[in-house]
């Protein structure tokens, strides 16, 4: 399965993301991960947000193994680069 172009999160069940998730998103290194961040899955559980190349199959087992049990929300890297508007 390929990553979706856009991940649509649910509203978080708790106001703030777990500190360990924020630290994970700031320190995570993986050769297939382009950007990291914090989001929620569709049920509102805090999750790790990652963008990966659009041709990559997900889930990525060795990435998820590093994620302390948090769900991972994948997005495919868009074709168009981000530019200042």
């Amino acid at each position, binding site marked *: 399965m390929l990553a979706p172009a856009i991940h649509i*999160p649910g509203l978080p069940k708790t106001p703030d993301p777990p500190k360990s998730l924020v630290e994970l998103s700031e320190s995570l290194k993986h050769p297939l991960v382009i950007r990291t961040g914090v989001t929620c899955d569709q049920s509102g559980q805090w999750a790790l947000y990652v963008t990966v190349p659009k041709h990559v199959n997900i889930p990525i087992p060795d990435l998820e193994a590093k994620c302390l049990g948090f769900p991972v929300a994948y997005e495919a890297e868009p074709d168009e680069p981000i530019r200042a508007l």
Partner: protein
Amino acid sequence: MANFAEASAVLDEYRLALMTEQQNEGPQVSQAFSAQGAFSAFATPLTNVHATGVGIRIRGGKIVSNDFVLKVYVFEKQDLGKKTPALTQGSFKGIGIDVEHLSVQQALVKRAASASSTTPANHQARTRPVIGGLQISPIGAPFVGTLGCLVRRGPASSGQLFALSNNHVLADTNSLPIGTKIVQSFGSSPTDIFAQLNQFEPIQFPSGGSSPRNRIDAAIAAITANNLVKTGKILGISNYTPTLQAAQPGMKVTKSGRTTAVTQGIITAIRVNGVTVNYGTQSSPRIATFDNCVQIANPGGPSFSLPGDSGSAILELSTGRPVALLFAGNGQSTTACALTSVCSRFNVVPV
């Protein structure tokens, strides 16, 4: 012949192309159109289009079964001859285009008014007093951006007011000197000056092997006379409440900008790290990397932002409270910096 799925698959791309062309329709097109006596509810052939969708082709008043096309709904249907825009004739990506007249129903007018009662032209016009959501520019600059909102440093009674936007709007990406005059809406006229560049957070670019990281693209310009501006107002946002709010995933948001006017979207991620943003051109890129970004998308709808919307304040839809400052995008998603970081950097609060 296309089936429903095939036609639906190109609809978003068609809408984006249409919106881009609508923004690009120059004064010559507008004048040519108005010269035909067609200047009415719309200004140009493409702003005559008020809705798009997918439907079954109708030819000569008869339904053509199983042939799904892009439906383009216009205020007034008329033959423009050779001036008919390419986007409203023939096909798009192999999917046929049907142009149909569809009058705007009264209930829809009311609904649209509550969501967005402004057009891009409203945001680009010279407006006094100056409020958030309007087009601004450094004096004489060949580019424009958006005034996000007004901010204040110091006590409510005597604090200094500033216009808040991006570094790349107010300071032309680290280039303009402090004190540069800022105009609303655009041009070189001294009578349009309402603020002066006061502070900007420098955008760091890679140099000599370093890979610096940025957190905000922001700047403030001091208001030159308080009677030129009005606090507590953002064009087209009826519930603007100038109290900071933290961005959250899943939060529905809105913004008011000079190119796409008032649009809505959803925050897809926060604290996003490693966002590379091109401040140059496609052929001569100038890349800066940002952390702690907020990402917004508008799945299935028109783009949340386009060039010129930079500097817009992004607000929680339900409360009108500001959460982020728009500065980048790619047509699919919009990138913003957290407004708490911006206000903390300049020691200001939204007003």
